[in-house]
């Protein structure tokens, strides 16, 4: 299928559908939103997108990056209608129906229609958010495994939120070390205890990074140096990280 963006009319119809889902969770996605001429316009002639099933947000972001990097002359990351079309296109993955047929959309519309101007909400979009995190680490995506290993419909990862709400999302050393400390590559999940609020946990890791960021240019601080700068409460991760 050709990559499209929604029209104004279709964007409004999609927003209405989300409101309907809040009251009637079994409501079907309106037909024709993806391709009907009044609902969608082609982004770039000849640019096709497949309806693939992704195992993780990382895989989805990687695939979309390969598609969207072929688009020029438009500010992709701020194209609300494009991201909304992608939401509809992958709706069964980002908002899957339960066994009883109901879909749970929740109260946050920014998850489905991105609020690109809102610095506290733009990254909450179920597809744009992972795409932005992936773009920051596209040179070595596994570095960001701790951020993007959830399935498409899980949008509540604390690791993702903590990083993307700060400038650390773009920093190789801090992200790589977080993956080394807190991510279990065997289970593709956070390691036990990573999410604790106390000493050595992810939240504390971000807090310490914020303190170090005042003194150091953390873009230049690699994993080895960063480990030395961290207080001893993180030693347990350094010595017990999987694969060592």
């Amino acid at each position: 299928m050709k990559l499209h963006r929604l029209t104004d009319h279709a964007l409004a119809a999609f927003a209405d559908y989300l409101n309907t889902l809040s009251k009637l969770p079994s409501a079907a996605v309106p037909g024709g939103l993806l391709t009907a001429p009044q609902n969608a316009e082609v982004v770039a002639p000849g640019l096709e997108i497949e309806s693939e099933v992704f195992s993780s947000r990382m895989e989805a972001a990687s695939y979309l990056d390969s598609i969207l990097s072929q688009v020029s002359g438009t500010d992709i990351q701020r194209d609300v209608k494009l991201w909304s079309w992608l939401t509809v296109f992958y709706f069964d993955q980002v908002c899957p129906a339960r066994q009883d047929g109901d879909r749970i959309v929740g109260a946050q519309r920014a998850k489905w229609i991105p609020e690109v101007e809102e610095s506290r909400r733009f990254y909450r979009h179920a597809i744009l958010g992972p795409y932005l995190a992936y773009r920051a680490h596209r040179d070595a995506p596994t570095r960001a495994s701790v951020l993007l290993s959830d399935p498409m419909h899980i949008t509540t990862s604390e690791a993702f939120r903590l990083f993307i709400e700060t400038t650390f999302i773009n920093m190789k050393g801090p992200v790589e070390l977080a993956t080394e400390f807190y991510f279990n590559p065997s289970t593709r999940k956070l390691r036990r205890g990573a999410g604790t609020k106390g000493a050595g946990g992810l939240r504390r890791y971000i807090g310490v990074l914020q303190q170090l960021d005042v003194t150091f240019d953390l873009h230049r601080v690699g994993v080895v140096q960063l480990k030395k700068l961290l207080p001893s409460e993180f030693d347990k991760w350094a010595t017990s990280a999987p694969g060592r």
Partner: protein
Amino acid sequence: MSIRRINSTGRRRILRDDAQILLRTQSDGHLSFDASLDLTDYELPSDASVYIEAYRQTTFMRFDYGTVALPHPPAGNDRRLTEFASKDGLLFRIKVTSVGERPGLLLAEGDGIPSREEQDEPDKRLPLLPPAPADLGQEIWKIDFAANGPLLLVNKQLDWKSVASTPMFRSLVFPSAIRQVLTQILLIDKESDFEDLQNWRARWLAFAVALGAGEPPGTASEEDEDEALEWIDGAAERFCATHSWLTHYIGELDRGGHGA
């Protein structure tokens, strides 16, 4: 989470006069930039590394600019801002970092540096509340707290630049915006430092101090909260008095202006 920026390592603040960023639009439509840096008065080690970062929200590019003694800007095409399709909201950061015993130690930094295009006049003021267009539905304006300070979002369905500059709009919006921003700083972020002007919160508090509001209260206790609310009110009132907003508003009404 707000972090107080204690300058225990003698980090220097690079002034905007010493870091000018000029944007160009290339023939292929890409933005690129030229930087003019003057670091001579900062007493920095000659071998310290210089970096320029361009950023907007999570989008980020970083450029190696050589050293303090031997600036070495990337070649023309390598200064293309390929990650940014427009200059909206684009800001720059200059970092000078140590290469000695503590590599990566931040020796000097200038943040929130705006760019200008060749035809623009240099703007040496640091806007406390820059306006920006936004899709706000039926809402006219709102404050957005970005990492580098608040933005005044104005509905992009309006001629937002013109609207935001009218006395009618300013007289109605600015006092409320000031209350909102100062409330965020004192009561939510619990920040009362007004000296580290690198920090947007300190710049806002310093602005209120300059209006004659007095030093901001502490942020620790419930009593402080009451005092903070009074201080915020006082700052907003002084702002209105300084700019005679009621007079401007009446003048607009007399001229039949409706603010658009």
